């Protein structure tokens, strides 16, 4: 068959394929279940044209169609919403269970200094001056003074939305810092975990020792589980990156980093989601003055309990299958 016959025979199908790629009027000419078949046919024609040394213009045209078909057919767009539901419902807790070592280490880096400083400051209150400057301490004390109308760093009726934006910006940024700090061989992640543990512990210990218990603990109780667990998990994601760089095992560092990155970034999605939740609760629930502290304690403990159940049981059995296709 010479080139002219070849072109005459297949011209119509090429035009249809091109129209389908453009998504224009002729697009409907190919039924969806035929797409892959038509694409393979283009690839086949391209191979034929090359092999028979047909003109470069024909080869280029077919190559162009094949490339565009490749771009149109490959790639995983997926259903973002279904993926999200699956991830929250089962993929994320299953992932956290799977990465329990990294999460446990990150949690220890955060919670040990935190709880340790609270204990230390209850015993030796003056230690706080080594950690936090006087003026900052004074502002914290003023924030949680019993007479305030609203609780938290700022007050004012319509400030909730503003504070929400501020919390999102600030907290999520910390998550990202912990994660990206993992790229510095994990040093950044470790630093930010311990640093945050120390700072939070120092403030909490100081305010507890001053006796501002109902205001401070009432304020933080609700979102503490969301925020602290989110920070620990984002730290775990950073540690995974760092560990892949330190001990890549039997593969090149870059390959190890990429493999760890795929897991770590999904931990980070979950952590960022939790931190977002924390910001929401912090802005709209924790700052409400009218709710008695006892109720807030109760809600806080309830969240901690729910998270324990969530991470222990959610998605058991089917977490793997659904968690793996999210990227």
């Amino acid at each position, binding site marked *: 068959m010479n080139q002219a016959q070849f072109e005459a025979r297949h011209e119509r199908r090429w035009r249809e394929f091109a129209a389908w790629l453009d998504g224009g009027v002729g697009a409907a000419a190919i039924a969806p279940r035929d797409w892959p078949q038509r694409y393979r046919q283009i690839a086949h024609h391209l191979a034929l044209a090359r092999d028979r040394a047909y003109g470069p213009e024909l080869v280029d045209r077919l190559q162009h169609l094949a490339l565009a078909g490749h771009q149109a057919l490959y790639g995983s767009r997926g259903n973002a919403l279904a993926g999200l539901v699956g991830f929250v419902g089962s993929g994320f807790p299953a992932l956290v269970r*799977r990465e329990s070592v990294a999460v446990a280490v990150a949690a220890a880096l955060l919670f040990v200094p935190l709880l340790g400083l609270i204990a230390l400051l209850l015993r030796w209150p003056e230690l706080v001056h080594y950690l936090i400057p006087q003026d900052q301490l004074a502002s914290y004390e003023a924030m949680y003074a019993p007479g305030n109308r609203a609780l938290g760093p700022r007050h004012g009726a319509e400030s909730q939305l503003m504070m929400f934006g501020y919390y999102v910006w600030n907290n999520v940024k910390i998550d990202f810092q912990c994660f990206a700090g993992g790229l510095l061989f994990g040093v950044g992640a470790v630093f930010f975990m311990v640093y945050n543990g120390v700072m939070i512990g120092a403030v909490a210990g100081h305010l507890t020792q001053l006796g501002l218990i109902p205001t401070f603990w009432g304020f933080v109780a609700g979102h503490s589980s969301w925020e602290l667990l989110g920070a620990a998990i984002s730290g775990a994601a950073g540690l995974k990156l760092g560990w892949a760089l330190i001990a890549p095992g039997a593969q090149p560092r870059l390959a190890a980093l990429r493999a760890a990155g795929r*897991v770590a970034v999904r931990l980070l999605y979950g952590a960022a989601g939790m931190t977002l939740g924390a910001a929401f609760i912090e802005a709209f629930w924790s700052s409400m003055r009218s709710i008695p502290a006892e109720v807030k304690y109760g809600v806080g403990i309830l969240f901690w309990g729910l998270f324990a159940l969530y991470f222990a049981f959610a998605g058991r059995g089917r977490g*793997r299958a659904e968690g*793996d296709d999210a990227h």
Partner: protein
Amino acid sequence: MRIEALSLALRPRTPWEAIDLGVALARRTGAALFLCFALPYAGFALAVNLLLWGQPAVAALVVWWSKPAFDRLALHVLAQAVFDPGLGWRRAFASLRQVPRTGLVAALTVGRFDFARSFHLPVAQLEGQRGAAARQRRALLDRRARGAAVWLGVVIAHFVVVLVLGADGLLRLLSPQGGGLSLRLTDLFDASGALTPLYLFNAAVILADCVLEPLYVAAGFTLYLSRRTDLEGWDLEIAFRRMAARRAAAALGIAAALVLAGVLPEPAQAAASPAASAERKAIDAILASPEFREREAGREWRRKGEPDARDPPAPGAPVDLSFLQKLARVLAELARIFAWFAAIAIAGWLLYHAWRRFGWPARTPRAAPAAPPDVLFGLDVRADALPADLAAAARARLAAGEPRAALSLLYRGALAGLLRDGHLAVRAGDTEGDCIRQVAASAGAPLTTYFARLVAAWGRLAYAGAPPPATEAHALIDDWERHFAPPPRGAAR
């Protein structure tokens, strides 16, 4: 110019792609490019700053103004590197003396304000054009690439700022007090006259230049090459030449194949004797052991979602208990060490008690100092165990088709002779190589050479099962006679 010798892929490129190629070229040229620019440039900058001490702004201006002179060094190296990808920095450095000076004055005066400086530099430096001809040439080149060339300069200038502030930021990140260089752009306009920040700034800018200026020159150069490829159809020339070569080769094809078949050497020394196959197997077995396994990172097709057997265990695998194995291994290792200590302690205790009960064993007469050992490398090297006329015996073995026995005799004889003459003092654990070194230290060169030759032949035979060719074996025996012809028996101490 021999464009067929260019090690760049020639094809029509957009100006942006040509600039990217410059980055790749700079990366490939590597140390040759960056050192040849950085050393002279940084040295000059240092000298200027020292000469104009107290006036950092003036010094910075002088350094900045002179930069085109150093661009020439970078271009000179790059122009060689496009033909010679393996250009090392030593050779590049030696070639810097030949950098042409054409148009240097223009480059440092009018040309200093040319926004497409690195793009135009090859016109003056490589083509050697001047005056009106150069202007015309530049206008022709500019027609479709000037925009990109100017943007290149702008972007590189911004990259300098990024690296300067980045270096400062890195120091801030690393230092506990968050000090860093404390570079602030406002310091540049500070009238109070503090010099330190300005000098820090100068240093940071010079360092950033050392990285980015070669990149700038390389990108300008590839942009120039790409533009000439367009203008003169270099890629077409290569394709046409290749076609001509293909036709010529096709005509000569059959004849050439015949000639080649005659000329090609025999496949080098394939499977020697069947006797070697056992050793071959042993070698293969050793090469197959884990120590010799190669790890290779690569990409290949694999079904989606299908775990790769070579991957580390999938994260979803049931709880990984391999750490228990590792723990067990560590415990076992500790137990082993403990057992050794225990054994040594018990042995010591027993000895102690034996001594307490029986006193020292009666002294045996001391052995003569440095008595030659009887066995070396598993070979009996006592002079008595060797035949009187060793060379003849070896020849007989060789004639009988037993090269191993013949060489073994020679080797043992040589060792015995060396021990006897005091050239060797072998300790346990010495290797053949150690022996050769010892011989070299105390015996003459001919003997050392011979011994090394003999050791090598023996090693090939004993460990690889490859017997030496007959001529070599006979030569070894003859030489042995020359070196170790046994002296009268009585002389052996």
